[in-house]
């Protein structure tokens, strides 16, 4: 964040006749983040979110480890859904405006839940084994169907699964055997 800003300012400075970009979109985003934080801090009753973080750790460890299969992962995805539901009603005590570590961890957990879902969706649909994605139900690598990147976009608040072709370089891909 720090260096991004310095670099961006420098680029604008260096380019002759560069137009100053609109600041409004950024300021708008800052304002909406402020509002979001205010609302979070006002929440008083509900489950303390720390237990949800612990449960997410267990789900990811047990259902999305290196060795995985369709059924366990489906269960895992279901659990992530329940955790999201619990999270939406959760809260914490700390209302301090400075060095509010609880708030930071709360926002981090929000992002972690999204990422957990992304991991789950991609892994369930990838019906092959590749690297550390080792599926007991699809033990072999399948270049014909899955030599492609998994891309997950956010559309109207929902995660949507897509694929993107892999740009192959000089070497033809082949299975790694040890």
């Amino acid at each position, binding site marked *: 964040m720090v260096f991004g800003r310095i670099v961006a300012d420098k680029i604008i400075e260096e380019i002759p006749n560069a137009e100053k970009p609109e600041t409004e979109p950024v300021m708008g985003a800052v304002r909406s983040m402020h509002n979001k934080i205010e609302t979070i801090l006002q929440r008083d009753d509900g489950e303390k979110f720390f237990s949800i973080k612990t449960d997410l750790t267990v789900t990811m460890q047990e259902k999305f480890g290196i060795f995985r299969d369709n059924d366990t992962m489906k269960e895992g995805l279901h659990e992530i859904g329940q955790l999201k539901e619990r999270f939406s009603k959760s809260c914490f*005590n700390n209302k301090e405006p*400075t060095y509010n*570590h609880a708030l930071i961890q709360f926002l981090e957990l929000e992002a972690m839940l999204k990422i957990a879902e992304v991991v789950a969706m991609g892994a369930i649909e990838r019906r092959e084994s590749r690297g550390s994605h080792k599926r007991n139900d699809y033990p072999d690598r399948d270049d014909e169907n899955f030599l492609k990147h998994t891309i997950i976009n956010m559309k109207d608040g929902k995660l949507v699964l897509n694929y993107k072709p892999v740009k192959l370089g000089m070497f033809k891909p082949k299975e790694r055997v040890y």
Partner: protein
Amino acid sequence: MKFKIFRFKEGMEKPIYDKFEFEPPTGMTVLGALFYLQQNFDDSIAFHYSCRGAVCGTCAMLINKVPRLACRTQLEPLIQGELKIPLSPYSAIEETVAWDPEEEILIEPLPHLPVKKDLIVDMDKFFDYYLEVEPVLQPADPEPALERLMDPDAVKELELYTNCILCASCFGSCPVDGAKPDYLGPAALAKLYRFYIDPREGNNESRLFLADKPSGWWDCEFHGNCRRVCPKDVPPLIGIAKAREKLNIIKNRKDGK
């Protein structure tokens, strides 16, 4: 296990100490305990950390009256008295609060820097002093085509000092920094010495003169606390002693002695 934690925030006249008690699992560190307390007792406890693995230098604090990294200090040996480090005395490590070392873990912010909140201190002064020694390589010759080679023996001494992770434990342990607020302190001087001995450096000698003043090399009283508390075994006091020795030689030479 009992914990006694320094609490302070803006507007308070003086700090208070909060007490907690829980049985930690084997291997838990002080940083782990702080997370535990935050999650189970009081989520407003403020402290800084980042890597959790003694690499970033963010989590230095005064633990049982010794400046240490919270993430590198385990509770069990601490309570069993195995991690005691005898230090040359200064005011912050004297008894400021009732504390039973056999029963309680005492966690306070790093001394000699202003407290912002609870265990978080303002590091600005520490980094101002660090910047004062111009902590970047200033080679004299033009950039070589490939790389600047160094004699492995020279690197050995250099590494003693480059291992520093800028945690400021030494700064918080130095009686001189407590008594003389403008003393550059062990970390900055160790860094300066490191550039003085760097074979790739172009300004070796003039580097020494950068801290040729009371608040530089000359205020050190060789208490040696810096070396004792350093989590990375950096020996600032040796660098300082060698720098002084060299400066004396250079000055004598100039005086024609």
